[in-house]
């Protein structure tokens, strides 16, 4: 073969050079993006000028001038916009955390029921999943709201438990603990008890591995966690009083209130997310090979023990990642609170947006908060997946 006919790099046209093509297309994409951003920014500047507005977060220090239905931190209508957003944030966290706890409980119970040998039990779980999944969450929130709020009696005819807990169409109102000076000691003892139980569990496991003897660590730590704060309170002369609600005129004063909007949202979110968790738990348990169940049976464990000690710990490996995803979904879905007026982050933000017209800033706050929650969740999932990777010998 002569030198001339040998294919060389130079003989292929530069037009077909993959590296060059890649660079050019990326440059084009970047240029397009820059142009798009430029157009958006200039348009926004013009529009804001027309509306006599400017971009910036200084409005967060202005007085909010609106009331918020329920708040975990102190707030009045003279507080700032920033404070109002913070109230909304904590309300979101509250409903999300309680919803996660409730949805997990519902999901695990229904997931185990779904796999029951008993046709009625598994059928009930299947019916629950099929029906609840097929109805939009927003409609379910409205239905719970109409179901929870409307049939309840007014404050004067409230369902009364020992003159301390009242259920009416104003929500569930119960005694509120008021901590005086010295209660901090009880808190410190509680934290100490939690740390002690952690070490106790470690010791119990090691002890069992070496001697085969079991220490009832669970019961001991439960006892510790109850006894320690009570001891602290006793030592400090019981600095704990209860603010008991009482009926004054047409409404209650004092106490702690769970408003009906909150209850409706919490129930709807938990029952809806529970269906997804049910399916996750079911498939997670099914993913554990049948040999494990048989092995646990041949060791003499009964069904409950086999499930609790052998199957579920292994199923958790499969269950946790999608479960974390559902927790995130529940948190995101809690934004539907705006439809019934529970003041979460989006609802308070929406009110501020309407009052101040600061659309871009408010939407940015929302995005940053929810994006950090989801990025945090995916970071956790990556860490968990790595930690739980099957180590085979």
């Amino acid at each position: 073969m002569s030198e001339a006919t040998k294919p060389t790099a130079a003989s292929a046209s530069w037009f077909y050079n993959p590296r060059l093509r890649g660079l050019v297309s990326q440059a084009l994409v970047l240029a397009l993006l820059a142009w798009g951003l430029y157009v958006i920014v200039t348009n926004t500047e013009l529009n804001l000028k027309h509306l006599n507005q400017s971009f910036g977060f200084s409005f967060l220090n202005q007085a909010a001038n609106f009331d918020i239905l329920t708040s975990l931190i102190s707030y009045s209508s003279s507080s700032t916009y920033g404070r109002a957003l913070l109230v909304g944030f904590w309300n979101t966290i509250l409903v999300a955390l309680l919803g996660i706890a409730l949805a997990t409980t519902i999901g695990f119970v229904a997931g185990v029921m779904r796999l029951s040998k008993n046709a009625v039990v598994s059928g009930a779980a299947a019916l629950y999943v099929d029906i609840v999944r097929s109805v939009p969450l927003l409609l379910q929130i409205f239905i719970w709201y109409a179901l929870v709020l409307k049939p309840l009696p007014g404050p004067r005819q409230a369902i009364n438990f020992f003159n301390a807990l009242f259920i009416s169409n104003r929500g569930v109102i119960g005694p509120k603990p008021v901590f005086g000076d010295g209660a901090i000691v009880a808190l410190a003892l509680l934290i100490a008890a939690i740390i002690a139980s952690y070490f106790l569990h470690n010791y119990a496991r090691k002890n069992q591995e070496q001697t085969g003897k079991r220490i009832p660590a669970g019961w001991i730590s439960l006892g510790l966690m109850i006894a320690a704060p009570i001891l602290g309170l006793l030592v400090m002369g019981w600095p704990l009083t209860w603010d008991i609600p009482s009926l004054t005129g047409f409404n209650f004063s004092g106490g702690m209130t769970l408003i009906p909007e909150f209850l409706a949202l919490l129930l709807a979110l938990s029952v809806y997310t529970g269906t997804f968790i049910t399916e996750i738990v079911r498939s997670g348990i099914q993913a554990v090979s049948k040999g494990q169940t048989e092995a646990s049976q041949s060791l003499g464990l009964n069904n409950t023990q086999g499930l609790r000690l052998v199957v579920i710990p292994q199923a958790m490996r499969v269950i946790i990642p999608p479960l974390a995803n559902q927790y995130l979904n529940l948190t995101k879905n809690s934004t539907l609170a705006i439809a019934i007026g529970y003041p979460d982050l989006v609802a308070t933000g929406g009110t501020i947006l309407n009052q101040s017209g600061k659309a871009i800033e408010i939407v940015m706050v929302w995005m940053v908060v929810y994006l950090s929650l989801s990025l945090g969740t995916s970071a956790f999932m990556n860490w968990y997946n790595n930690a739980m990777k099957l180590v085979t010998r």
Partner: protein
Amino acid sequence: MAYVRASEAPKMAAPKGTIGFAAWAKDKLYPTPLSGLGTVAIAALFLAVSWNLLQWAGLRAVWSAPDRELCAVEGAGACWPFVFAKFHQWIYGLYPFEERWRVNIVYVLGVISLAGLMVPSVPGKRWNALFFFVAFPIIAFFLFYGGILGLPVVETDYWGGLTLTLIIAVTGIVASVPFGILLALGRRSQMPVVRILCVVFIEGVRGVPFITVLFMASVMFPLFMPPGVNPDKLLKAIIGGGLFASAYMAEVVRGGLQAIPKGQIEAAQALGLSYWKMMGLIVMPQALKIVIPGIVNSFISLFQDTSLVTIIGLFDLLGIVQAGFNDAKWKSPQTGNTGYLALAIIYFIFCFSMSRYSQYIERRTNRGLKK
């Protein structure tokens, strides 16, 4: 050969307690006493709920009445006349009465084309898909909006009810398929700039709630436009829904792409196909077939999420039903409950049948792959 049996041995009866209703009940209803207790408790709960529902929705319900009068009586059950009276509005929204035939034509065209796409044995999938995804949206838009061929213009403010819900959901999903494919390809691209942009878009949109995307589309989008341009409320909702669905669709398509063996890509490259030919002729046809159930599931989610446009002031199915509660002619204690129940049934029928369809396709695809 006398020792060989000439006839079959007589069949013996099955051991006692292994066949028949009693054995089935023992196995399925009370394998253990505790389980039996569960059966009784659940059955009792189920009967109690059904009985109350039957009482309220059937025995004590009002079936025909000209207005709220009969429904407002103390102890009356469901107020069905409200549903009958409002049903047309639930379907068509405030679309002018004499123009509703246009909506009906769109429904008929859509149902025929969609049925052809969904039933595996109907031929002409390619042409049908082309019609449904390209021609049908254009035809539907001009039929709804009018303004050509002498059809009077109907502004989008009058569109509503189930029709609006379907418009937003179908447009969103139809738009999300091509965008989702591009995003999924971009996410697997060799080019870092493209890959990073796609990942940022997909994770950014998936990380925030739908309602914030809708708010963004409705309050921020007008600020991005040249001054004086204020897009239609419906258009903004559709853009929001489309963006949201695209990000989720990208992940669905990525799942399909990951299921294609690497050998397919290498074989296509060995044949000298370009990137787009390889994707269009070899990879995508296989990947998309796998993700059909995923697309149907995305549609179910979007169909349910569409109810959120109520919050930004559009009258979709949920919005129009709620608007009816305030009608003085029908206001009664039971109107709201009846409306919600009817609404839940409508949504259930749509979503449940779609999810069953997606399970059917999934089984069918798996069967094909196992061969």
